[in-house]
């Protein structure tokens, strides 16, 4: 590891424009490509402060600062283009959260890294619309929040209410949302409006350990803990009237439901298992990285392929999970309003994954290439007319769902041509942590956090109040800063802003 003074480090960073910085080669050893990160003034301060703190003598342990992690990823074998840090970037295991990196599938040295996907495989956001308006919901907001809370089990160790046995799980892992469709939990249109149509075809449940399946089985249809939530939201602002209308959003005040969840313990176990395998593979194939946490394997090695197949199974798990919660939310609304979900027009607007690795076609230096794109805390944002986005969004670009933190705003963005060129069609995923979990627990009191939410008129149901401070808005970067940076940098466009009126949380 290079040890340098903060001022020395800054020489390797260059501000290209108001929203974009370049990380030059040499910032970390063996960088194959340059790094880039997107920040505005506020986020820039946070980012550089993190770097400065790490340069102080005696700073050891903990994660490396985000900038360093972006540069370490740029040193991985087979990386093409640039290692990209999105505005919500913060330190994570190996890869920073909010980092995207693409590897050439036709380069035999290229790698796949579980750290580049994250432990919560296919964590993502789904947005349902309704034809209700705020005035319809306000009078029964508390009952509705309670009804959602009763339907969707939340918290660490929660168990789902959809009966499943081991065989159902095997099928669900292979079929993804097609399983939910077959069993009748969701609508045909839900599949249409989901990344990958809710199913990764290369999923192979036989590559998944027994342990992962045991952990996953009772957790299907549960929200989980941490930053996951289900929120009832209202449209606060519409920036792009036409794109919003394509999504079925007509006016301010319209009510939506946002579900933010992932593959629960299942994905975590798949990632853990893979890391063990990959450490062995790295030794065998002499793969060198700057950071031990960047465990990886050649894409075409057995370990690499096994990981991709089990990751796909975990991705399918997450889609079934979000689909089950879609079903349960529809039930909760139907009960409260004594109307069918159909009559409430509760369609899925879109479903995005922000922790995943996918094989995609991109243009690199004027040539079409097949890449393995790692997006960790980064959302795919494909431009209008891209063949992989639903027909309904061919003119607007792919909807990108950005979940804020508990009690703050969320956004819907759309993908752009510029993003396709600059960031391999990727953008931010949420607010991004500013305080570590431990620091948040020390600095904040959960009673204050809950009181503040109540003051702003947000009904809240939580399973574990004493963990709420970790997720308080103060622990995060401001999502509006993050989204505005993406918009200003042109890598995605603002479309809709949503404000929560009820939160269900682990």
């Amino acid at each position, binding site marked *: 590891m290079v040890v340098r003074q903060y001022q020395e480090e800054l020489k390797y960073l260059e501000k290209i424009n108001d929203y974009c910085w370049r990380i030059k080669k040499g910032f970390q050893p063996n960088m194959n490509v340059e790094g880039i990160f997107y920040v505005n003034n506020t986020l820039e301060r946070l980012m550089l402060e993190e770097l400065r703190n790490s340069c102080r003598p005696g700073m050891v342990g903990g994660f490396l600062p985000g900038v360093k992690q972006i540069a370490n990823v740029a040193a991985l074998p087979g990386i093409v283009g640039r290692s990209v840090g999105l505005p919500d970037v913060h330190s994570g295991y190996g890869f920073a959260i909010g980092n995207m990196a693409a590897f050439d599938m036709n380069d035999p040295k290229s790698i796949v890294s579980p750290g580049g996907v994250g432990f919560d495989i296919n964590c993502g956001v789904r947005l349902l619309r309704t034809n209700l308006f705020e005035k319809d919901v306000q009078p029964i907001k508390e009952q509705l929040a309670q009804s959602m809370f009763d339907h969707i089990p939340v918290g660490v160790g929660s168990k789902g209410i959809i009966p499943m046995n081991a065989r159902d799980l095997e099928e669900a892992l292979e079929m993804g949302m097609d399983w939910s469709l077959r069993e009748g939990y969701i609508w045909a249109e839900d599949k249409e409006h989901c990344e990958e149509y809710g199913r990764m075809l290369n999923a192979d449940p036989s590559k998944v350990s027994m342990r992962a399946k045991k952990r996953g089985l009772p957790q299907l249809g549960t929200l989980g803990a941490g930053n996951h939530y289900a929120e009832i939201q209202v449209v606060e602002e519409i920036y792009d009237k036409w794109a919003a209308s394509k999504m079925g959003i007509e006016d301010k005040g319209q009510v939506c439901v946002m579900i933010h969840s992932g593959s629960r313990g299942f994905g975590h176990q798949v990632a853990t298992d893979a890391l063990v395998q990959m450490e062995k593979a790295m030794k065998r194939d002499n793969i060198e990285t700057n950071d031990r946490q960047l465990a990886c394997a050649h894409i075409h090695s057995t370990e690499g392929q096994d990981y991709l197949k089990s990751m796909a199974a975990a991705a399918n798990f997450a889609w079934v999970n979000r689909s089950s919660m879609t079903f349960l939310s529809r039930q909760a609304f139907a009960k409260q309003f004594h109307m069918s979900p159909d009559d409430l027009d509760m369609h899925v607007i879109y479903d995005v994954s922000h922790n995943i690795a996918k094989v995609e076609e991109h243009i690199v230096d004027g040539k079409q290439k097949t890449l393995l794109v790692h997006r960790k805390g980064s959302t795919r944002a494909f431009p209008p*007319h891209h063949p992989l986005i639903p*027909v309904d969004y061919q003119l607007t670009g792919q909807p990108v769902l950005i979940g804020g933190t508990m009690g703050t705003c969320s956004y819907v963005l759309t993908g752009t041509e510029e993003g396709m060129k600059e960031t391999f069609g990727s953008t931010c995923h949420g607010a991004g942590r500013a305080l570590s979990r431990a620091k948040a627990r020390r600095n904040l009191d959960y009673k204050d956090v809950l009181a503040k939410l109540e003051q702003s008129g947000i009904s809240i149901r939580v399973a574990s109040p004493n963990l709420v401070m970790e997720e308080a808005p103060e622990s995060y970067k401001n999502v509006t800063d993050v989204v505005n940076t993406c918009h200003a940098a042109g890598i995605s466009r603002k479309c809709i802003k949503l404000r929560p009126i009820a939160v269900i949380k682990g």
Partner: protein
Amino acid sequence: MFKRKLKALDYIDRDKINANDPQHFRKLVVWLEDQKIRHYKIEDRKDIRDINSTSWPETFKRYCEDVACPITTQPVDQLEWLIGFAIKLEFEDNYKKYQPITGKSLKDMNKPVAPNIKSSNPLDNLDFHSAEFKNGIEELRKLLCIPRHSDHLVTLQACSKIVCMRLNAETLLNPKSIVLKGKEFPILEAELGFNMGDPVLNNAAKILRLLYIQDLRDLQTRINETIVSVQNITANPRTDTKLGKVGR
């Protein structure tokens, strides 16, 4: 799979033939050579007639070369060519017998003799390029508000499309079923994704994109309908609140 062709050749086992069975395959080849193709002299057919020999595939390969079969991919494809070849030879031997048989004469043959009404399609006697005809199309076009194409027959095609799609008995009764519902979208301001440098060309490309999106929407709708019809059979969503457990 070659039933019709084998019927034409009067092959007895044509209904039972399975070209993937080596015995069937070899028998048929020998029959074709013996009865129809007769490329080798009788005394030279020894090898090909020995259908149980292990070297038969070699013999077959050589045979194909000898009759100049251009196909080299699959034996089954070669067999199909051989059958076609046999038919060609058969026709050439008896072309006088086969020549008068045309689609029309066959139809006449099969027609019941009694009500011999001459089918007189009035369209057959029309002159599609007469001024009168062109004027008629022009009138029709104006009536249906269709833009004119330099080729009047293309204009007629457009008219026919409109009439078939929107003016048939069913849709006239229920016009809403065909009128596309949807919200306006400023397509001409939307991004095209590429620039051809000419605004007229760009607009044309946008219109092509719209047509493509409409096709895609139809396809997706049909996919969704199929899924729903399958769901009617398979769906059985269940919940059991007793299983639920809220975490800490």
